[in-house]
């Protein structure tokens, strides 16, 4: 039987077609389901951090200090050595780890209740010492894990389960802007705010996370990336409404931008 040109082409084709992998789970993430709510951007933030860890080739030299809040189980999601700190104390615990392993990359992953309220002292002093650690700071304007109470970052007038009449500035003071505060510390090498509300900003956040880790690796001092994040469950919104709320309500109070960038990092970013 004669072989048609089409059959001939098929027969001549290589047995295995090599596929190009364009997207996969970063090696620095474990293969488990997270407990995060639908529409929450913690998952995005985890992925960005894991991608940067992969990209920099530092997974085996990285130690995570998880905090108390929604990200308390972060140590189950990152395939790196990890320890779980007491509420607010992640920067102190990370200091202990880093002083023992100065050659390792040590990062904390903290929410706004943890970092800006109970852990205000520890984060400020870690920065003051120029502790060579990196902090990923998730700001979603509420205490997520305990069910949406008012945080130091809660917006003026924002209704939460512990500010049922809206945040009253006379009673509770105004929102705390952490990266602005931390940028005033001489020990801070890198302090920026980014947002996870859309793709463009998420890509910018990823770049910032990379720069923050690079600041640590170069031994420049303390580095922090604040990420404006969504909490649809506690905000009482849909996932997409919550992303709009970040853009429309959070960013005016928490302007995105670079608050401190060590000169050595400006060079490396070019």
């Amino acid at each position, binding site marked *: 039987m004669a072989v048609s040109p089409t059959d001939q082409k098929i027969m001549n084709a290589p047995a295995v077609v090599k596929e190009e992998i364009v997207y996969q789970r970063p090696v620095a993430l474990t293969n488990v389901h997270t407990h995060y709510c639908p529409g929450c951007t913690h998952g995005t933030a985890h992925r960005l951090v894991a991608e940067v860890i992969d990209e920099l080739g530092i997974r*085996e030299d990285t130690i995570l*200090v998880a905090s108390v809040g929604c990200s308390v189980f972060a140590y189950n999601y990152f395939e790196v050595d990890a*320890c779980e700190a007491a509420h607010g*104390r992640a920067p102190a*615990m990370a200091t202990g780890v880093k002083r*023992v392993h100065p050659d*390792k990359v040590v990062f904390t992953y903290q929410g706004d209740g943890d970092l800006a309220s109970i852990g205000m002292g*520890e984060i400020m*002093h870690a920065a003051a010492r120029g502790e060579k650690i990196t902090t990923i700071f998730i700001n979603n304007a509420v205490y997520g894990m305990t069910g949406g109470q008012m945080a130091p970052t809660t917006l003026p007038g924002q209704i939460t389960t512990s500010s049922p009449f809206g945040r009253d500035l006379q009673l509770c003071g105004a929102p705390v802007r952490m990266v602005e505060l931390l940028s005033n510390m001489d020990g801070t090498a890198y302090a920026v705010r980014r947002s996870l509300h859309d793709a463009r900003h998420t890509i910018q956040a990823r770049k910032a996370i990379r720069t923050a880790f690079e600041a640590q690796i170069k031994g420049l001092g303390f580095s922090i990336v604040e990420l404006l994040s969504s909490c649809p469950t506690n905000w009482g919104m849909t996932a997409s409404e919550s992303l709009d709320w970040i853009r429309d309500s959070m960013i005016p109070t928490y302007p995105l931008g670079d608050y401190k960038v060590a000169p050595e990092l400006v060079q490396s970013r070019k």
Partner: protein
Amino acid sequence: MAKQLLKGNVAFAEAAIRAGCEVYFGYPITPQTELLEHMSSRMPELGRVFLQAESEVAAVNMVYGAAAAGARVMTSSSSPGISLMQEGFSYMAASNVPAVVIDIMRGGPGLGNIQPSQSDYNQVTKSAGHGDFHPIVLAPSTVQEAIDLTILAFDLAEKYRTLVFVIADGTIGQMMEPAELPEMRPVSTERPTWAVTGARDRSHNVITSLFLGAEQLEQLNLDLQDKLLQIQQAGEVRYDEAYLEGAEVVIVAFGTSARVAQTAVKRMREAGLPVGLFRPITLWPFPEKEIAELPKRIPALKAIQVVEMNAGQMVHDVREAIAGQVPVQFMGRMGGIIPVPEEIEEKVRLTLTPAQMPATLKESSNGRVAH
């Protein structure tokens, strides 16, 4: 090494260094500050880590981090600072990491004062933090013992992956005595397999105290209790005794109280009075069995006299051990007052010959508490 005149606080610090302490975190507080100061010069000199934290809360969490990272680590403080550190102690107990804590006790409650006291006994032996755990607690009564027990503390901490406290009152921290320091041990840079060191060629290590499942957390507690039982049964109970033969009264005291009691006992023995001394060195595990056996060992024993620099804390452990075999009496001074041998002697004499008790003498006179 020859004996040298050493201040208690400096002896604690130098002993830790000789024991191979690699990392120290602390915060200034009287009457332990010389310990921190000694560390601040010696540790960097030896290429080791000294860091003055912003608070006791931060210090203890730095200790937690360093312990999780697998280093031989220590902190020190005094009573109000120990209260602040309780958060970290509980987390460390739950996650089975070793660390050494020196507590140079001062008068409480509150800010109290900076005079010597033993009022942290309950806090340290029974409730060093929330949850069910006990650290090992060692109580030196001399500067030499401060050195020896600090070295032992590191060994026990690592052997059992536990917290070990060395508690002394401000007297021992502040006084100078001739004492001998051991040779310098090499610092081990080998890290335990459970420590966070970077997940190289293995799956990731996690140090945590969070176990949301009730069965899971009960299991953690059962394992912890097993470990505590193992420590109690492994011959880690330590104590000292003197003049027990034929004693009608045995004084039970630790630390500085025991030193004062020893003077009183010696004097009374010289005067022909049958008095002995039992000094717990491990406050946890407590020498419960050894104290329980005292009435059987000493048929003449009429009563136990506990002397402490507090309102009566260890006395309850002694009463539990004695379980009604003989009366257990208590005498204590508070507020930073150290009992004098005479008042101990007076109390013991009343027990030996109760008929001689003057009608006017009340047990609570002169600021003493007694029960």
